[in-house]
């Protein structure tokens, strides 16, 4: 059974469908990509109908309601096979009103998006390190100050081609970094997942 049919079955089949999805195993990104024939049907430059960006306005049962930055409304159906990232692998009950998200999935006949993956509050910043404080970096991102917090046991650094390590001591003020992190909604703060730095 391909991914699109599986998700369609899971969503349209209600609870039994959700159990069915689980019984078929975890819905890995590779499964999704392998089955997502829709990729080939989207012209370069065009909006991707299987992708949603926006802010969460409500969470009800297994549906996340989102308003995109262009003002359009989306309903995102979460199944037991949906992977949710919110700094760490997460669950639907950690998705809150006000969160920002990106979602990828499959459009259902009622125009809901059956989600393969949700990335909640994820940011990817190319920034300049203004200064380094105790447990955080002060970043300049397109002229805006961003405070990037280090979470012990979670935040990691990659220096050139080294494996990710917890040691942030090689980061330097005045250098550029790329930061994958989780935004704290309605603030200029993030928590670092991985910071990539040239040394």
């Amino acid at each position: 059974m391909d991914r699109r049919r599986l998700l369609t079955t899971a969503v349209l089949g209600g609870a039994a469908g959700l159990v069915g999805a689980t019984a078929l195993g975890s819905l890995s990104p590779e499964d999704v990509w392998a089955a997502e024939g829709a990729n080939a049907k989207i012209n370069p430059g065009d909006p991707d109908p299987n992708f949603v960006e926006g802010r969460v306005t409500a969470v009800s049962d297994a549906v996340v309601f989102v308003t995109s930055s262009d003002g359009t409304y989306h309903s995102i159906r979460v199944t037991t096979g949906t992977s949710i990232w919110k700094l760490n692998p997460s669950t639907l009950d950690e998705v809150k009103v006000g969160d920002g998200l990106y979602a990828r999935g499959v459009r259902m006949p009622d125009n809901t998006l059956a989600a393969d993956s949700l990335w909640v509050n994820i940011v990817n910043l190319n920034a300049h390190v203004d200064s380094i404080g105790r447990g955080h970096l002060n970043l300049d991102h397109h002229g805006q100050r961003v405070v990037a917090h280090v979470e012990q046991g979670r935040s990691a650094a990659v220096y050139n081609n080294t494996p990710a390590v917890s040691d942030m001591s090689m980061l330097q003020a005045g250098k550029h970094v790329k930061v994958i992190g989780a935004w704290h909604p309605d603030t200029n703060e993030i928590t670092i997942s991985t910071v990539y730095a040239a040394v």
Partner: protein
Amino acid sequence: MAALYGEVSWFCCGNSWGPCGSTGHGSCGTCNSGSRQHAWPNASDACFAITRPDRCGENLLRRTCGHVHTTTNRCNGKAVATSIADCGPQTDLFCGERTCCGTVCGSNRVIDLTPSAYSAIASLSSGLTPAMVS
């Protein structure tokens, strides 16, 4: 064009939430996170003067707004076709950087995809991926 090997990442553009809200629609004026688009380091003279991939030994052809590239994730073989909508990444800031999955590696940042495009071939949480661009 001959296949180019390097690193692919993602960037946000257009109207968006959080720190992405200040990024704008890119140098082509058309960039949106939800569209199948990318940033290219040699999209104009002004762009090249900023990104300087040549300083990392990368000889990238001049390609302008709307040109289509296909990016293949060398970790899983998935590919996505996108059009140029912005200038970037700033390759010279990370010369020599290398990303690997197993024995497959890519060096130097040569292309940035929108979240829509990147998530079609890799997880957004991965950040950097070895890629082939054609």
